[in-house]
């Protein structure tokens, strides 16, 4: 019961958001004279043969891995109350640098891959670190600086790609870096299909899936179980209280942004190590922005982000089949967009419900105590019940805003 109550709002909000998004998208489609039911049918149709179906599953998983990492990168900063909008620039710059370094060296297999990954993480972390340094030394809002740095990062990335790192011949339609040698490729996981007795699809399931899972677990442990994670979350919940508790807020900003950036550096790795083996002009873009949506939908928890990433990947997969079936592919964009909007609204609704139920949770057992040993003293326990209510009432009326106003007033006075 308690688990249900605690999970209730957490699960409810995203599910509600998805349902609302589907309904809205259906209405939009209907308005555009597209039959929503048939569109949804195409979206869930994974093919007829087992091989086709498994291919679809692999496509979804392969897309989900970078989305998951992007969501994590955003969420790490989010949990501290920082908006890292710069994930896009961070991973693009990191990937082009890692691709160039990877192509320039020849090392034994695992080391080669490790080097590429470390370079990517380092580059993205440094790029995110700029945001942190600007914030703690100059008070620049991380939202502004990370957005601006996106443009610079993308500019630098295309300069590097077309200039120093160019590996493709002159006049090629797609410019790319030199290809990473085989030792720097990450093998696929298709072996598991055989082990599970499933059809082995022609497409490779990214080996980076395992890395992503490890990173996800690592982040979950770091945030939930360590002192560092506690400091980080405390700062996110109340910077002033965290500071009074001894958290060095500036240091936390730097550390958190470095961590967020390092995770962002991994976003390009599944594609780079598992499929393209080079950074190209048509390398997957937009993952950093989708990551914000994924983190929102997943409510910043690693498990939630994994589910959200799978959903977004599932939607992404439908792009091609929809086009084949002569339906507008923008349907997917509409659904993703409405999910984001709906999630923002429903998160707020869920937060209020959670707050309210917490207050009730606070008040109700006090009443039980009052009835239980009402004979012990003159009104002591009953007072407890009334005390609980006082708080409950106060909160319900104003929700979150009340607290912030109060805090402001008290600092002002």
């Amino acid at each position, binding site marked *: 019961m308690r688990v249900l109550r605690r999970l209730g709002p957490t699960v409810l909000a995203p599910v509600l958001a998805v349902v609302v998004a589907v309904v809205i998208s259906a209405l939009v489609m209907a308005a555009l004279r597209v039959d929503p039911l048939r569109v949804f049918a195409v979206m869930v149709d994974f093919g007829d043969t087992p091989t086709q179906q498994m291919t679809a599953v692999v496509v979804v998983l392969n897309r989900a891995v970078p989305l998951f990492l992007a969501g994590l990168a955003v969420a790490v900063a989010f949990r501290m109350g920082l908006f890292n909008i710069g994930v896009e620039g961070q991973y693009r710059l990191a990937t082009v640098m890692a691709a160039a370094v990877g192509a320039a060296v020849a090392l034994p297999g695992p080391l080669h891959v490790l080097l590429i990954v470390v370079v990517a993480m380092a580059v993205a972390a440094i790029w995110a670190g700029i945001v942190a340094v600007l914030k703690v030394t100059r008070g620049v809002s991380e939202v502004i600086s990370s957005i601006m740095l996106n443009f610079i990062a993308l500019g630098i990335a295309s300069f590097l790609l077309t200039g120093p790192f160019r590996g493709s011949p002159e006049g090629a339609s797609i410019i790319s870096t030199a290809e990473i040698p085989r030792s720097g490729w990450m093998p696929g996981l298709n072996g598991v299909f055989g082990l599970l007795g499933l059809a082995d699809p022609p497409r490779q399931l990214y080996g980076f899936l395992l890395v992503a899972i490890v990173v996800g677990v690592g982040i979950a442990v770091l945030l939930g179980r360590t002192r560092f994670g506690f400091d980080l979350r405390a700062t996110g919940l*109340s910077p002033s*209280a965290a500071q009074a508790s001894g958290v060095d807020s500036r240091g936390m900003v730097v550390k958190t942004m470095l961590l967020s950036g390092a995770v962002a550096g991994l976003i390009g790795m599944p594609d780079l190590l598992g499929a393209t083996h080079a950074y190209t002009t048509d390398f997957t873009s937009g993952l950093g922005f989708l990551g914000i949506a994924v983190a929102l939908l997943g409510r910043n928890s690693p498990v939630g982000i994994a589910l959200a990433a799978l959903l977004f990947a599932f939607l992404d997969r439908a792009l091609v089949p929809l086009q084949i079936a002569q339906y507008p592919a923008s349907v997917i964009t509409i659904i993703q967009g409405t999910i984001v909007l709906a999630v923002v609204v429903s998160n707020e609704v869920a937060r209020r419900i959670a707050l309210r139920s917490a207050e*009730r949770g606070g008040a109700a057992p006090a009443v039980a105590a009052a009835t239980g040993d009402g004979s012990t003293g003159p009104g002591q326990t*009953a007072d407890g019940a009334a005390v609980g209510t006082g*708080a409950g009432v106060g909160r319900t009326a104003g929700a979150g805003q009340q607290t912030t106003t109060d805090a402001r007033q008290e600092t002002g006075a």
Partner: protein
Amino acid sequence: MPPGPRATAGEPQADPGSGAAPLAVELRGITKRFPGVVANRDIELRVRRGEVHAVVGENGAGKSTLMKTLYGEHRPDEGQIMLDGREVTFRSPADAIAAGIGMVHQHFMLADNLTVLENVVLGSEPTRGGRLDHAEGRRRIAELSDRYALGLRSDVLVEDLGVGDRQRVEIAKVLYRDARTLILDEPTAVLVPQEVDELFGNLAELKREGLTVIFISHKLDEVRKVADSITVIRRGTTVGTADPRTTSTRQLAEMMVGAQLPSPQTRTSTVRPTPVVELRGVTVTDADGRALVDAVDLTVHEGEVVGIAGVEGNGQAELVDAVMGLRPTTSGAVLLGGEDVTAWSTRARREAGVGFIPEDRHRQGMLLDAPLWENRILGHQTRPPAVKGPFIDRRGARADTARIMRDYDVRAPGPDTLAVALSGGNQQKLIVGREMSARPRLLLAAHPTRGVDVGAQGSIWRLLEDARAEGMGILLVSADLDELIGLSDTLHVMLRGRLVATLDPATVTPEELGGYMTGARTTAGAA
């Protein structure tokens, strides 16, 4: 505005429906339930027109719930609200305002960066051609200010005003909306004695003009001074009404809590010679180089409570921040047990044995959206029982939270309850328990009993006394003069960043102390 019908003050309870002088406000059998709890039960409140009617009760007794009912913030489950003898139903505060009810909140709802004029008219601006009509607003505010002796200056920024002035702006806001009945929620909580007297003067003006004031408080002396009649609420229901002229404070207190009123008293000195903390010429300046704390010298010994009295905003908060390491000192040194800790981080100071009860527990003391056990860890992230190496010890933190809840009488369902669900008193007891559990050498207690009920106040006082007896040094900043006088071994007065007087708490009276706090008295001897 014609003056409303008035009943002579001191007249025995007017019968409901007697017709001659309908009551300004009458609540009949108000019951308000929240899931699992009854916040108000069969509340009866009769307020005559033109009187100051006090509603007293402990924190959490249901005063706020009742006033929210009257102000239309929620609807009662049972009972009737009658205004001037007519039953009314409020769907929102807007309805209540339209019916002539105004609320002055305890925490001011003012925009600091707007002028008095802009704050007062906000939401019901006089306009001319779609633009704010400053002249009309200024005229109406001047009129209000004259009529009720509020002394408002329309064009001053609210951020430049003192607490008393801000409160008058709040009152003007309500009057501007033609309120005939004012609800004042704990209006004296933030005021010093002199400002309280000024407020009472304003209330007398309001009364003279035929307005009705409902005055929420738990400060019984003040209530007796200002109120024409008193309704006492305990455990969500009215336990009776009292005439302030024939009822003693003690009788009122007994009605209110149903028990003896605690008083802070530490008379036998436990001061030991070893200093715990020494401040040497500590100066804190703001961004413009103005000294907020000005060359403060101060020593707290083991087993000593050093009280800092002062009108809020005279540098006490900055002094506390400087000792906690939350704000850099411009010059001077902070010595903890003889060691210079001026350059130490807050965490290092905490680890070296500094406990902290912040003045604003929501801002600095708690993570409201986190469970109690996580709040147990806050401020103690580097020490057992909450952590093991780099990891959080969830089990240990939960167990220790349960212990604190038991030992310090924190009333909550369990360690997993969110802190926001607790009443102010219980939150404060959790903070006190948490800080005490680390056995600090020095405890910085800023307004440790602010906004907590009498019961919790008494137990917090006892905890501080016990800790003092065991040799803890306590730096106590408070606005509660009785608390300062009762608990302190040494009492300093802070005015404009300086310690201007050192007084003997055994002989000083609250009035004298108030004089020093406002600068009316000085140590030179001018009384």
